[in-house]
Structures are given as C-alpha cells and as structure tokens.
C-alpha cells in the first residue's frame, strides 16, 4: 500500500510571497501480519515558484487580487490544476499577519488553492514550520542534539528549538531586514518600523526618514538588533531592548542549545556574505543585518548548521511539513471530510479521568458557545497505553456525557486521542449512541489548547485521515 499526496505550500510573508508544490509518499510500514501503520515516508519538493514582493494595497491592507494572480500564474507554470491538490497550507507570516484584511485573505486563498488547503497563522506555528523547512529538526534528530533555527524575514525573526527531532520551544522577535527601508540608489531612508524608531529615539541616533544612510550610520542599530538575537538564544543577558522586541514570547532556554541554523531572506547573507556586495541591494537593511550576524557571537559561539532552505524555509515547511496522518486504526462513521478550522478543546491530565471528564468538557464547551449557539469542536486528550475494554467504556460514557450539548445541536462527535485507542473508543461511542449519530475518533495526534485541526479525506483505502494541526493567530 503506497500512496502519493500532492501538497501545496503558500507563504504570504512581510516582504515576500512564495509557493511550492511537494509530493508526500504515504506507506504502510508494518508487516502484513500486524495491524497497518501508515507513515509519511518521503517529502519531495516538486516545484518552487518565483519569489514575489507581497502585494499591498496600502500600509494596512493586502492586495488579494494581485495575490490571486500570482497563485494562478504559478499553478499554470507548474502545470498543476487546483483539483489535483490533495493537501497543503497557506501561512500568513510576520507583519502581513497583522494587516486589516489578513483573516479574509488567508481564508479566501486557502479555498482558492485547493479543497483541503488549510489556512494558518501565528508566530509559534510559523517558527515550527520554518525550522522544519530549514531541516533543523532533522539535523537535531540525526545528531542527537539540541539546535535552534532563526528564520529572519522582513519583519520578524522566528525561533524554534528542536531537541533530538522534537519541537521543544518557539519564540518570535520583531527583528527583520525590512524594518528600515531605503532608496537603493541614494540611500535615503523611506521607512522605519515603530519599534525600531523607539530604539533610535532612546539612543539619540541621527537616523530618521529622509536621512541619507550609509553602513557606518546604521551600524550601531544593526549591532543592537543582532544583540537582541544573541540574547534570545542565551548568548548574552544585558541588551536593554530584548524584552521590547519580543513579538509574543521568547524561548525559555530550559536546555543548552549547541547548534544554530539560519533561514529566511537574511540567512542567505549570513551564509554567503561574499555574494552580496551592494549593501542596499534590496532597498532595506537586510544585507547589512546579515553581515552583522555573520560577525556576531551567533555565528562564532555556536556550531553553525547549513540549513536545507533559506528564504524558502517557511513555504517549504508549509508545503511539506504541515500535513500529518492519523493513526491507522481509527473510527469515522460517515465521510464528511474535509472538516476545516476545528477548534480544539484540550483536557488536562486530571480532566482526562473518566470521572472528571464529563463536567470538564461541559464547562469548556461554554468557551465554544457564541450567542447561545455551539461551535463544532474537537475534544482532545492523551488517553492510555493499554486500556481494558471496561476502561474504554468508561471513557466513551464520559465523553458522551460531556459532549451532550454537541449532540443536542445535531453536530457529529469528534474526538482526538494521542495513544492508540481510537478505533475501539470510536466504536464504543457509536455503539452507545445506537449507531444513530456520527462519530469521528482519531489517534496518533498531539493537540494543545488554542490549536485548530483540519481533517482531510481518507487515504490509503480509507485507513487513515490526513490532518493539519495549526494555529490561527492574527493580532500583532
């Protein structure tokens, strides 16, 4: 049993918009005399688009029409029809995620790009996706170590820490190559981002919009920006601006980081400064920032890993590393897929005890009730390694009790467990419902509070479901 999925990744970043197509191979890795175990065995990039500047209508709005044209053109160039796409993700990143129409654009675009192409947004997700696109997770797994990837884009720097292949922490900083823009020919500054403006003001530097800048004038600013990055990975503690430059959170440095990789547009300069002789090549401070990082402790004090992708890390991550597949013994009683943007109701360890489960679910379901009407929700918990049949029945009864409001609203029951127990649990729930209501029960998927899950159409003779676990965070 071997199957291929065609996946699309689209990245709407602060400065650039890109697209890739990749092929994911799904295979049964179990022998024929055990239960099947479907695994994504191969991820192969098939097509990479040109890199476009993200089209904007003005400072606060994305030009959806132009974005759509880019996507259409690239689909055509790749010779791919929309209905050939099996899965994929559109991610809106950096400053672009803060635009007024970000939410509409991303949802419209995901629908436009394919049936099961999901909308994603949020700095933490972006960090993970770019880190995986850069191949840092794989490196940390193969070499059994802890590594950080910094994806330095136009507006933000996304950090992801991987320990032996597992994502352990993420962070995001407002450090990027296009936070100061200038005229390529004259060096006249045309834009300074608000947070950078504050640093300039408190330092009293002679840098403002209209100033003719050169490398020497900008150097102190670039040093501050680089120091913030150094501090973020634990190489220093004394930068006064670090806290202010954090987008949502920094990384917690709970374990020692031994390796570092760079991705994002600025990474090209970090790895190959000799290729960029014109300091204002892109009409911004990206080249100079890259050079400064190259000379900093980031490059000297940590072991530097060559990343698999630089400027394309995020889009490759979106296209190749967002789709997971469920466990291979699952329950779904009717084909109602794809189901998109399903919010997650996560139960804690204590709440996952069948005795406490019913009340906990009811209480949390209130969060998903807007003006009296309840939203479709996926209930997620860890589950058990080796439950007895009686125990499974207890779980099923508790879930039905807690999810009663969903039943009353006529919604199917969707349950996601981590441990391998979804087939029997789903069947037990379905049995208790006298086979009258729809039940979807998946395992092998880890979900956290605040996340969303999208579930695609069954593959591999209906044995598994592709899923995308994601966030949808738009605010700045």
């Amino acid at each position, binding site marked *: 049993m071997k199957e291929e999925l065609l996946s699309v990744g689209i990245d709407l970043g602060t400065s650039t918009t890109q697209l890739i197509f990749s092929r994911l191979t799904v295979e049964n890795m179990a*022998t024929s*005399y*055990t*239960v099947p175990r479907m695994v994504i065995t191969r991820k192969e990039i098939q097509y990479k688009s040109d890199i476009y500047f993200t089209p904007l209508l003005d400072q606060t709005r994305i030009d959806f029409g132009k974005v759509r044209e880019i996507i259409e053109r690239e689909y055509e160039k790749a010779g791919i029809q929309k209905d050939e796409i099996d899965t994929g993700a559109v991610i809106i990143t950096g400053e672009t995620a803060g635009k007024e129409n970000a939410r509409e654009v991303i949802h419209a675009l995901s629908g436009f790009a394919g049936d099961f192409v999901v909308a994603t947004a949020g700095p933490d997700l972006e960090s993970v996706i770019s880190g995986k696109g850069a191949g840092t997770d794989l490196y940390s797994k193969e070499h*059994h*170590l802890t590594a950080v990837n910094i994806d330095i884009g136009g507006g933000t720097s996304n950090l992801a820490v991987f320990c*032996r292949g597992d994502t352990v922490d993420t962070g995001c900083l407002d450090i990027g190559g296009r936070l100061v823009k200038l005229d390529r020919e004259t060096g006249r500054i045309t834009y300074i981002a608000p947070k950078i403006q504050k640093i300039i003001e408190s330092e009293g530097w002679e840098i403002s919009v209209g100033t003719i800048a050169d490398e020497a004038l900008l150097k102190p600013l670039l040093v501050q920006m680089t120091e913030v990055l150094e501090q973020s990975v634990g190489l220093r503690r004394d930068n006064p601006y670090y806290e202010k430059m954090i987008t949502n959170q920094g990384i917690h440095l709970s374990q020692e980081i031994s390796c570092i990789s760079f991705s994002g547009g600025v990474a090209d300069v970090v790895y190959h400064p000799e290729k960029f002789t014109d300091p204002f090549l892109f009409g911004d401070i990206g080249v100079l920032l890259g050079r400064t990082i190259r000379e900093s402790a980031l490059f000297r004090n940590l072991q530097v890993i060559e990343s698999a992708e630089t400027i394309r890390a995020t889009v490759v991550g979106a296209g190749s590393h967002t789709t997971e597949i469920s466990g291979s*013994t699952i*329950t779904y009683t009717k084909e109602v897929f794809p189901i998109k943007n399903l919010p997650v109701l996560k139960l804690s360890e204590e709440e996952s005890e069948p005795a406490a489960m019913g009340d906990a679910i009811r209480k949390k379901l209130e969060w998903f009730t807007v003006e009296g009407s309840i939203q479709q929700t996926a209930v997620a918990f860890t589950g058990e*390694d*080796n*439950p*007895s*049949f009686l125990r*499974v029945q207890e779980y099923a009864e508790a879930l039905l009790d807690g999810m009663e409001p969903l039943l009353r609203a006529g919604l199917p029951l969707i349950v996601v467990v981590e441990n*391998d*127990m979804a*087939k*029997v649990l789903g*069947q*037990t729930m*379905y*049995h208790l419902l006298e*086979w009258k209501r729809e039940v979807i029960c998946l395992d092998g998927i880890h979900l956290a509070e605040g996340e969303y899950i999208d579930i695609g159409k069954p593959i591999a003779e209906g044995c598994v479901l592709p899923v995308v676990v994601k966030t949808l965070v738009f605010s700045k």
Partner: protein
Amino acid sequence: MRDEEIRSMVEKILDQMLNTSTAPEPKRSEVIQTTAEALKKKEIPAESGECLEDITKTDLRRQLLVKNPADADGYLDMKAKTPARLGIGKAGARYRTATMLRVRADHAAAQDAVFSDVSEDFIKKCGFVFVKTLCKDKDEYLTRPDLGRRFPADELEVIRKTCGSHPKVLVIVGDGLSSSAIEANVEDMIPAIRQGLQMHQITLPPVLFIKYARVGAMDAVGEVTDADVICMLVGERPGLVTAESMSAYIAYKPRHGLAEAKRTVISNIHKGGTTAVEAGAHAAELIVKMLEKKASGIDLK
C-alpha cells in the same frame, strides 16, 4: 520422549528465536535506577518473609546500565525505539549481574508460558466452552503438531452443539504456545470484536476454548460447523521481549487443507504491541470485510 528431552528441545527452540522477536512500538523514556543498584540499597534479610523486587517489572527501554555515559538522554532516546538489550554495560568481558539475571528471568517466563495451562477458573470466568484436541498431554502437544489440529468425535459433537450449523462468524480461543498470552488479552479483545460485529448486526455464538490447540484446529472447527469466518485467538511462541503476545488468525471458510496464505493474521497483540482492545476493533472490521469479499489472507488484498 522423556521430560528433560522435551524441555531441552523447547529451550533450544526458544534460544533460536531470541534474535528474531519482533519489536513493539516504543512508548516513553525516562531514567530508571538500575536493578543491581536498587537491590544494593534495599537488602532484605532472608528470614524477613518479604519478597525480593520483581526484576521483570523493570522496563528495559528505560534502563541504562552503562556507567558514565557521554549522553545518557541520547542513549535512552535510542533505546526507546527497540526492545533489544542495548546499553547494558559490562563487567570485564561479561554481562553485569543485573543483565544476566534479567535474561534468565525472561527466559523462565517464556518457558512457563509454554508449559503452564490456561487456568480452569479463567475459562469459567470468561464463559468459554471447553474442548480438547487429540493431544492427551502437553508433551504430546509439543511433539505432535498434527494431533493439535484434530478433535476426537465426542469433542466434535460439543463443537457442533455450541456453535450451531453454518454460523456467520465464530470466535475461538486456543492456548497455543503461550497460556499467559491468552489470560492477558482475550478478556479485552473479545468484547471489542463482539461490539464491532454488533455494528453490522452480527452476533456470536458462545466462544470455544481449545486446549492443546494449533492454528490448524480452526480448520477442523470450520469443517464441522460450516462457519463463514472463524477468528482464532492463539498464544504466540513466547520470546524474551514478552511471553504475553497473542495472534488472531482469521480465515474465510476454513476447511481441512486450507493454504496458510489464506489466513489473515494480526500478530503482536500485547500491552507493548497492538493493544488487545484496538486489535479487537480492527479484527471486527477485517471479519466484516471478509464476509463482504468472501475471501481472506492474500486473496483479500
């Protein structure tokens, strides 16, 4: 053949298998105190009447016996992926005492699983109907596989009465080579199968328990009952990883002379492999598919 001879033969077979046991999936990893060190700390005087710690309770995947490892976490991470006895350290050119004791303990458990019987209380508790193959004792069972596939006439009569004529699906249990596997798994697996079949309006007649059973015994049951599908749960040859692994052999219209390739197998049913409840739910679905396609084994693909 004398008892010792049989025992030494079984021992030999088990030894050969040690290298080929299949690996169940890893669960989690954390450092566990080494058994030897634990024993040292908690010496119990012989006359106290207390038991020594059961060394087979230690999860080997989380036990690292290497002294001063350069990267203990990395090592444990690798160990989590295999039940093989990696990272056991050494004392001179030999195993350490903890490793030696554990190998012998696991070996003993494997032998016990073969030589012990499924208890009568257990069979009664589960409500199974007891039948026996032509074998008159364990020794004959081990030395004469052919007899473990056939029943005497009176037992066939019991089978006929219990299962009725032309049942759609039968679930039967055979001790096979591990009685421990049966006692550890069937209580959770059979209700899961029953529930899964109920979804398709299929009900099961009472479950047979077959003593001294080889897998081929299901063919004899098929012959006499004319069942459409038989699912036989049978104890697997034990190995050093676990003595509690069970298989489900499922076949469409099993009859004498059925080719082995026509049986569908779910193996590795134990707490570290496929869990009994999930295996049951999966087996029910396979059974329904077999009834639909009128085929099993390689014909089902």
